[in-house]
């Protein structure tokens, strides 16, 4: 019996219906404010249609075409990270009682089962990195365990993308429940988990034609030929190249704005802060995304270890591409290219890495 692995374009709504019948809230890509954003949706026609992109250093533009494709773009500024690592959340609350005593309470908020449609390979790989880092973080785990992931292989990588060279794309490689390959008239579909397999049995699938498989293969080959590639460098040496002139040049350009860390799907830093109630009887202890580019990130009783942009940029790059390997067994970069597109001055970290890689290893 031939494998049922093809979902005609007009049947995509069956997948939406099926997921909603299973009680999932749907989150997927939509064109909002001139960008692709992942937001709750209920119907296929909320997805982008014929939308393509131009991404360049410091540039992100959508282009409208008359194609009926829904996923003919690379990515938007965010995808999965805000769903699992909440940008701002309360960790616990404290209460001051009349007798002066204090009590502390958790603030559990049950997570809604959520199916995310249109997840990219780069973002699945970054999610796996966050899974490692937040393995024993109950707030993250609660949101993470509520996710069902429906990937769509990337057919239109941007000029800023380099997932092929990091080994994380352009197709969905691991971590998805279902993965789709969008073709002109429909989708090839494959399961990545038992949950995905079960969902497939309830979809009106047919056997894909030989021509469909060929189209998918050509598309994959083309999407893998990306302009940008990770240069060669020694991750263990990066932290020892502090005196390299490349840092001065990048620090002159960098605004220390933190856009790169906000859009990075693997960046995990957060700060904790206190939000007292106006009546003075209770206070919320919150966390929110932080950035190693912020003034306070390296602050310690009257001293900052990284007082200038040069030190902060160096921390970001040497952590992402160097220390991360030591921490979690691989680089913290999955090639999504967001830090290049969303940098207001168009800094390309691959160029900085290439300059650093040219430096012969220094001895200690």
């Amino acid at each position: 019996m031939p494998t049922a692995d093809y979902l005609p374009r007009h049947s995509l709504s069956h997948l939406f219906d099926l997921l909603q019948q299973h009680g999932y809230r749907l989150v997927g890509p939509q064109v909002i404010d001139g960008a692709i954003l992942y937001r709750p949706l209920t119907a296929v026609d909320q997805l982008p249609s014929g939308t393509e992109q131009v991404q360049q250093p410091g540039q992100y533009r959508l282009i409208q075409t008359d194609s009926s494709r829904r996923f003919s773009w690379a990515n938007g500024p965010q995808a999965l990270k805000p769903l699992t690592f909440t940008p701002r959340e309360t960790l616990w609350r404290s209460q001051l009682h009349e007798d002066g005593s204090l009590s502390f309470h958790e603030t559990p908020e049950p997570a809604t089962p959520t199916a995310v449609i249109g997840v990219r390979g780069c973002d699945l790989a970054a999610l796996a990195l966050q899974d490692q880092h937040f393995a024993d973080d109950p707030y993250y785990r609660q949101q993470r365990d509520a996710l069902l992931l429906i990937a769509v292989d990337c057919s239109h990588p941007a000029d800023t993308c380099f997932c092929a060279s990091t080994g994380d794309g352009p197709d969905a490689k691991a971590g998805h429940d279902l993965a789709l390959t969008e073709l002109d008239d429909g989708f090839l579909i494959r399961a990545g988990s038992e949950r995905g397999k079960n969902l497939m049995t309830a979809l009106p699938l047919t056997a894909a034609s030989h021509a469909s498989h060929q189209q998918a293969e050509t598309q994959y080959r083309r999407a893998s030929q990306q302009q940008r590639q990770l240069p060669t460098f020694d991750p263990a040496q990066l932290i020892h190249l502090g005196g390299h002139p490349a840092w001065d040049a990048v620090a002159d350009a960098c605004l220390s704005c933190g856009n790169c860390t906000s859009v990075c799907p693997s960046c995990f830093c957060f700060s904790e802060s206190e939000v007292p109630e106006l009546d003075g009887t209770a206070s919320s202890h919150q966390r929110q995304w932080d950035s190693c580019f912020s003034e306070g990130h390296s602050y310690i009783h009257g001293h900052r270890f990284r007082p200038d942009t040069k030190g902060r940029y160096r921390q970001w790059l040497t952590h992402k591409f160097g220390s991360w390997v030591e921490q979690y067994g691989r680089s913290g970069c999955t090639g999504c290219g967001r830090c290049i597109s969303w940098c207001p001055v168009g800094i390309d970290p691959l160029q900085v890495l290439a300059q650093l890689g040219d430096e012969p290893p220094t001895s200690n």
Partner: protein
Amino acid sequence: MTHPALPTEALILNRIQETEDIFTLQLRLTDPAQQWRLGIQPGQFNMLYRFGVGEIPISFMAIAQDEQGQSVLAHTIRALGRVSQALAALLPGDRIGLRGPFGNGWPLQQAEGMDLCVVTGGLGCAPAVSIIEHAFANRALYGHIHIIQGVKHSADLLWRSRYEFWAQQPETTVLMAADVAAPGWPWYSGRVTELIKRLPLNPEHTLVCCCGPEPMMQASAEQLIRQHVPADAIWLSMERNMQCASGHCGHCQFGADFICRDGPVMPYPRLRDRLGLEGV
């Protein structure tokens, strides 16, 4: 869902002004179910929380018993930032929150049967006092105890009477240094590394606990190695911004290490190639 480190209430029993800006809080944990937190080891730290203001990491200084035989936890703090200044305003009877203990402390077991050499600088002496007190409380477990304390200015010296008391104990050497010494300073005027040279060390049987500014720790470690102390017998207590204390918030990263979780006490060979690197 249970948060692994929800704070517990602590009652301020006493507040001691040590110097103009350094003070010690003596605390009792009010919840009988939370007394396990008193298992804190020398070199570990707690997150101290002032209601409505926030938390800071403070290393453990000592545990004593009060008249009723209850355990009293002591934390020594310098009032410098927003939270530490709010903690400085507390009075006996006030309540704070406490999470911990966190991190790895001094290698107490590895130190057993060896001479102890405790080298500290400035307020680095607070976490080191915890191991000195531990060693005197378990005196038979350790050989000679060397204590070197350095301060920037002689007026910064904390716990002078304690050092004078230790200096009178058998098998104990106490050496003090001030970079800038006021008239009447009876000890050495200069750097701690000069004092290390004077120590009658038995290098193969000495474990070093070092705490203070990084350049001072680095210079001390290199001097000790020149005096044939094995590098892996030298332990440093590191410090970085810490907000979560569970290795997640990212602020305390020192290269690949999360100081709150992989430290704060770490063996010198693991730190050696990163110490002194600008911005790390």
